[in-house]
């Protein structure tokens, strides 16, 4: 259910009125979305959702209580605020709590491509029909998800009448193509306009890669030089962000990067920026406190320059907020951009005498948090490279690798790369993406 800016303003004003004189901040998300899921080469699940999520955070006397609800009617919101007002006196004090920041100027950002925003299931169905047909012609089994949605998010608080408001339409597609002899390939796309999804070339590329991956062979576990393609790089960087670049674990000393700001811990070719306002892809102009977002250099020439803070942790640890409070998912970089190198992807492969090319990883998890050790499994296109050429596809391999050490020695980075979308969301539609090139690393540990 899309509320629209005026309705959102009304809701925020009402909540402020109900909460007065207590300080209050309000965060609102709404969505209307379609999601079509394919499996075994057919359209199998087809869903539509209308939803609203209103977060109310009431402050007073070094205390805070919060609630979220999808009941947006005035009388229900009034009752919810009354509940918070009754609860607040019983909440314990938090000496680290500071009042939310004042929103200094309003933001109104809208990008609603008509072809996506009309949310016509037939539009999505046509794309799926082409994709399924291309795969069928090559005896390939398809599974995946095509979704489109319109979302709104807004932040307001009782320190000013300014409102941060963003309304965007977006679409995304992820697919796995599989052959009956264990070949598979992976594709992902996301954008503001469904029209930009060239489903013919997307499908043809996946068919080609899937056929190349047929009949994978076993190879011995061990340490190998690797080429990590964009998707695989993105998988590792997402974990590096969660583990190392968020404030709580960093400040508590449980992160592999704790105490290392200003130190060179990665290869000097490694440069990473969090850029949530790069308008070529998904963007977020303000964080959930209503603080304006801007690019943040995380790693420069291998030196850890910054980590992410939200308003709360910045106050607690006497740092400056970098506006990284997400809408319910903690504090971490959501829009990572890795600086590309100068070598083409083809040259990267040609320059590798013997090693493994990894398309993506599956089910990564943390094995040792403080050390930064991750484990996971290769998936959907792993190849042995010998003398600069793909020799044969390789069966799944499990890696157990220290992610900080992995990027501490980089042989080369490709000039080409792509936006890798993060499209799996559990509560509320929230697409993000990371721009990643391909990396050639001298050593990566495959443990089984």
């Amino acid at each position, binding site marked *: *259910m899309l509320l629209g800016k005026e309705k959102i303003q009304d809701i925020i004003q009402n909540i402020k009125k109900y909460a007065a004189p207590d300080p209050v901040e309000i965060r609102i998300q709404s969505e209307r979305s379609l*999601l*079509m*899921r394919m*499996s*075994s080469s*057919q*359209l*199998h699940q*087809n*869903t*539509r*959702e*209308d*939803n*609203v*999520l209103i977060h109310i955070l009431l402050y007073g006397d070094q205390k*805070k*209580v*919060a*609630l*979220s*609800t*999808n*009941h947006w009617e005035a009388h229900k919101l009034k009752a*919810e605020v009354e509940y918070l007002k009754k*609860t607040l006196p*019983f*909440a*314990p004090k*938090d*000496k680290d709590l500071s009042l939310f920041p004042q929103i200094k100027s309003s933001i109104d950002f809208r990008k609603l491509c008509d072809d996506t925003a009309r949310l016509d*299931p*037939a539009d999505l*169905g046509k794309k799926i029909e082409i994709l*399924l047909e291309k795969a069928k012609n090559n005896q390939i*089994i398809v*599974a995946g*998800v095509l979704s489109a949605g319109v979302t709104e998010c807004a932040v307001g608080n009782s320190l000013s009448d300014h409102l941060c408001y963003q309304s965007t339409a977006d679409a995304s597609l992820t697919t*796995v193509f*599989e052959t009956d002899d264990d070949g598979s390939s992976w594709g992902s796309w996301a954008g503001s306009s469904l029209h930009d999804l060239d489903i013919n070339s997307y499908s043809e590329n996946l068919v080609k890669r899937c056929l190349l991956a047929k009949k994978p062979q076993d190879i011995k576990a061990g340490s190998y030089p690797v080429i990590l393609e964009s998707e695989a790089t993105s998988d590792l960087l997402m974990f590096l962000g969660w583990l190392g670049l968020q404030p709580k674990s960093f400040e*508590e*000393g*449980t992160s592999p990067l704790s105490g290392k700001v200003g130190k060179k811990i990665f290869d000097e070719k490694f440069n990473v920026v969090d850029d949530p306002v790069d308008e070529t892809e998904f963007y977020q102009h303000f964080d959930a406190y209503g603080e304006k977002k801007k690019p943040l250099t995380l790693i420069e020439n291998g030196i850890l320059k910054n980590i992410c803070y939200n308003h709360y942790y910045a106050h607690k640890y006497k740092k400056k907020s970098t506006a990284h409070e997400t809408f319910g998912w903690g504090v971490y970089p959501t829009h990572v951009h890795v600086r590309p190198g100068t070598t083409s992807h083809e040259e990267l492969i040609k320059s590798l005498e013997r090693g493994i090319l990894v398309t993506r990883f*599956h*089910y990564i*998890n*943390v*094995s*040792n*948090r*403080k050390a930064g050790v991750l484990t996971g*499994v290769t*998936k959907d296109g792993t190849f042995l490279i010998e003398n600069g050429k793909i020799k044969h596809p390789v069966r*799944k391999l*499990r890696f*157990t690798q220290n992610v900080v050490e992995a990027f501490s020695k980089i042989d080369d980075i490709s000039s080409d790369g792509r936006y890798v979308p993060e499209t*799996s969301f*559990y*509560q509320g539609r929230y697409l993000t993406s990371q721009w990643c090139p391909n990396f050639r690393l001298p050593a990566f540990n495959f443990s089984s």
Partner: protein
Amino acid sequence: MNEEKLLEKAVSFCTGQGVEYADARFVSWEEESLVQSNGVIENINRNTNSGIGVRVLLKGAWGFAATLSQDEKNIIQACESAVAMAQVSAPLSLHSIDLKKMPKATGTYSSRRDKDPFKVPLSEKVDLLNALHGELIKNKTIKLTDAYLHFAKVNKHFLNSEGSCVQNSWTESGIEYAAKAQNEKDTQSRHLIGWHGGNVKKRGWEWIEEQNLVSQAERVAAEAEALLKAPSCPTKKTTVILHSSQMALQVHESVGHPLELDRIFGSEASYAGRSFVNPDMRGTFQYAAPIVNITLDSTIPNELGTCGFDDDGVPAQRVPLIKKGILQNFLTSREYAAKIGLPSNACNIASSWNRLPVIRMTGVHLEPGDISFEKLLESTEDGIYMETNKSWSIDDVRLNFQFGCEWAREIKNGKLGKIYKNPNYQGITPEFWKSCTGIADKKSWRVWGIPNCGKGEPGQTGRVCHGASPARFQNVAVFGT
């Protein structure tokens, strides 16, 4: 209009559109959580949400639409959307879905709740968390603590076009509490209770009280301290004994997920993955050692996966999945059970009103063995004992797994010896289960509630439970990280 009338309207409207089948589900959630970090209550949250999901089967294809609105006009619009979605799906479906007839289901389920957690004063909850923090930091090596206390009240009302009308309502209570010992070089965690989001049960505040957590704080803090001084787990192939909390995770990842029949038929291939199991293995495949019996049971009173009916309206049941090591059955829904000619065993559950139901583990349990834990230990000459899950990863077909624990002890001549930190073990599912050489008896069998099992697109967090006793496996690859 009350919720049942709205559901009737929705189902009646959909059947008027010529669908083969329709159901409508009203779900409401009321939740409260407290987050404490290092003794400071950082968040006190309340969540309320509700809505209606409408599912239709038209020309053999599903359509689903969900709306938060409880207004008749908006619900009819959701019904129209569900029908429109099914119309788009039908020509792109290869196999027509055929739900086999089932008897009309009616009834209600509610969980036990002696003390309504929503009526327990906030100060009592805060006092408990503060008391735990206070006890733990008496040990000077404990520098960090993290706690999560969570309660929910859920009401789910289901109606379908075959005349079924069922209601599930329950209360959930759970607590997770971790202590971290820290020195200049290392941080080591020990959970007082509830790895993976709290050991949740469908019970009230009394469940939190019964666990008597304060009395365990000193031991847990001492264990975290000991881990700081401990060597890393050695790398070798050896016998392992896994505590029941780790066995719950082992059952979840390497038995529960691979036996989800929707996954076996490929419906999760683009996200959670497939399964190494196929339907032809039923009745013949040696999944585990003959001493292993694993059961689907969503009827154990007040456990997290327990329900009266699933979201197909099928009554909860107890079904053997693995008997004497041989695969007997899968976790099924009406749609997928029909594909293999079996009745559903009531595992089709949606996380809320805005999600399509998918096959869930509900309750999957390793049945107890016939030897006491003490005897199991005494009869182990050489090996490693591991407790409390810390890390988990498994491949997309659920074969190659690697799990890590918080706590390990050397086993030497039937006795627990040296403490090891950062223990991990790795295996291949059927080989691992076939190497099981002992399962402790009912005395050490307990059920663990896991509230955050991820599956589906858009994502759904399932609430499941697993009963297990400690179990022994031989020739397992172990190592430290």
